[in-house]
């Protein structure tokens, strides 16, 4: 109760939409507390104000940040994303990751990769990769292995269908516990799915019909709440049966 009173201001804003300029916290009322600010928040003397439009989120004990959904991806280290092979050079493949610049995928960044068995990707191959380096102004670097050097499902994806969504939707799809839309779909249909944090989603199933249903259900679920998502999926599945 006491904590709630102390956190009066931010608690009222948490999980709500905020716009740049909103003051979410007044530090003059709090003493001896450490608060960690994430992206989208800024300290102006005694007040914390918002810099980015989005939803204010917090996690215990004292982390606050603003989450927003865009279409353009900003590469971050250790993100798993879906890229499209654009070109191959001597040392790297050039991969499009929906970011400000093309990313480089070294030809040796595969499990058991040597100069003798360099994989060949034709233009337009979909790759599930991990971001290794992401600095401003430089092309990001990718890898098809996990930190310990194993393949771990990275690499080219065969068949299936890829569609693009916003960053917020792909984050929601990857949240744990499982996102309601995926859970509801998984109860009735069997499919394989790969979600990239850069707003690309790949779906594969035995019949093209299932793929189309899953893809459209996911694309429609961005602005819906959990119960609405479940209802939407139920209606969709009922109408097709």
């Amino acid at each position, binding site marked *: 109760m006491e904590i709630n009173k102390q956190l009066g201001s931010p608690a009222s804003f948490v999980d709500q939409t905020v716009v740049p300029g909103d003051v979410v916290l007044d530090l003059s009322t709090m003493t001896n507390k450490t608060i960690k600010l994430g992206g989208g928040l800024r300290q102006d003397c005694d007040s914390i104000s918002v810099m980015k439009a989005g939803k204010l989120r917090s996690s215990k004990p004292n982390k606050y940040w603003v989450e927003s959904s865009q279409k353009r991806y900003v590469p971050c280290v250790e993100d798993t994303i879906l890229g499209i092979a654009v070109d191959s050079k001597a040392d790297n493949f050039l991969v499009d990751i929906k970011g400000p610049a093309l990313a480089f995928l070294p030809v040796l960044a595969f499990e058991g990769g040597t100069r003798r068995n360099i994989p060949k990707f034709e233009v*337009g191959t979909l790759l599930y990769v991990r971001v290794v380096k992401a600095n401003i102004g430089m*092309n990001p670097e990718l890898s098809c292995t996990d930190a310990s050097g194993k393949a771990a499902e990275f690499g080219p994806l065969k*068949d299936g269908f890829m569609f693009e969504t916003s960053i917020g939707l792909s984050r929601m799809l990857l949240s744990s516990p499982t996102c309601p839309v995926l859970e509801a779909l998984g109860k009735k249909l069997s499919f394989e799915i790969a979600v990239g944090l850069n707003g690309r989603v790949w779906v594969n199933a035995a019949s*093209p019909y299932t793929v*189309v249903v899953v893809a459209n259900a996911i694309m429609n679920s961005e602005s819906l709440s959990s119960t609405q998502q479940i209802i939407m999926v139920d209606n969709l599945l009922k109408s097709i049966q």
Partner: protein
Amino acid sequence: MDSRLANSWRLTVNEKNFIKTALQSEIRIDGRKPYEYRKISIKFGRDDGSSEVQLGQTRVMGIVTTQLVQPYRDRPNEGTLSIFTEFSPMADPSFEPGRPGESAVELGRIVDRGLRESRAIDTESLCVLAGKLVWAIRIDLHILDNGGNLVDASNIAALSALLTFRRPECSLGGEDGQQVIVHPPEVKEPLPLTVHHLPIAITFGFFNDESISVIDPTHNEEAVMSGRMTATVNANGDICAIQKAGGEGVTQRVIMQCLQLAIAKATGITKQIKEAVEVYNTERSLRKIKRHPTSVGTIVQGGQTQTSGKEGVSESPGNHIERLKQLSGETCTSQSSEERKTTSTDGNAKNLIRGPTTWDPYSKGVGPELLKTSLASQGTSMPNEKQDLRNEKKPGEAEVEGHHPEDANPGSSAINESLTGLQTKKERTLEDAVKPKSKRKKKASSKTGAS
């Protein structure tokens, strides 16, 4: 170069294969059947002759304007029709600003041919002075979002804009009957164009497997398909134009099938366009009826909005419209409008709001007799003098004004009318003309309460 590479849209091998395999089982990636159209929504702007069409994700805006020009030598009795397309870079990463590319020119040509060759628009009625002056109709098509099938959406946008467009009426006058007078819309009602029929463009996409054809392809399908054909037909079953520019060859049988399908779809789309235009026309005529009291207010709107901005008065749309209404009451004559403008630039818009509340004859659409009786009941001489001056001018001007384009929402203007009507019922004196701030806030709150 690198950023251009990063920004362009790419299709994966997976998508290409999937679209083709799904089509084998007669499914399209957005869940449609092969011969199903996407949802079409037609919206109109406030001005005559502007439309925005949304076909799924594709958005096109059509604007029609007209100008008096000299006719072509070989057609001295006919007006002209020209189409300009603009592929805005915000619609697609591959659209570049500047000169129209090949697809932009092709799109303009298809829409143009559909309208011109089939004589959908009666160009002879656009003639004013044979051999000297005719109306030149110009259609501007702006592509706002490319979700596939720009041709069909642009065609519908052009047709909707043409159906709602009104050209000014003009008459011959002057000493020798050769001078053309163009009447502004306030004086004489502008005329619609004579459109004989509606040519609708329907686009088909063909895939490598010859037997697969789809109607209304999306952006992804357009990247995968190997041939396309656009058939412009009308609801009567006439074929106005066919365009097949290269691509996969198709048999005669497939073309006949496509044409029959196109005619079936065209009837549905024609009906939709006509319904949307109907709704717009009724709304437009409703607007004209209610526009009477606020017709003068719009003239001074420009000046007043600036001052209200300077004052930093936060205004709800209701407030703004009420201010307009009140100003309309007092600014009939130019001299009083100057007065008002100077006072408003001094930042005294509050006084302005005070003054006209004492007098609003149009709150119930009353006649001149009731006006005089209501003025008589309002007391002191000074406001009465001003009001009489205004009153005399107002009925005269009102007849002339008639159909000024309006900014106020008909709904809120109705609310305004009822509120100001209530206010005029109380007895007012000169003191009421100088109202303290509290009264304005009370009115503002009652405004927001009502709206």
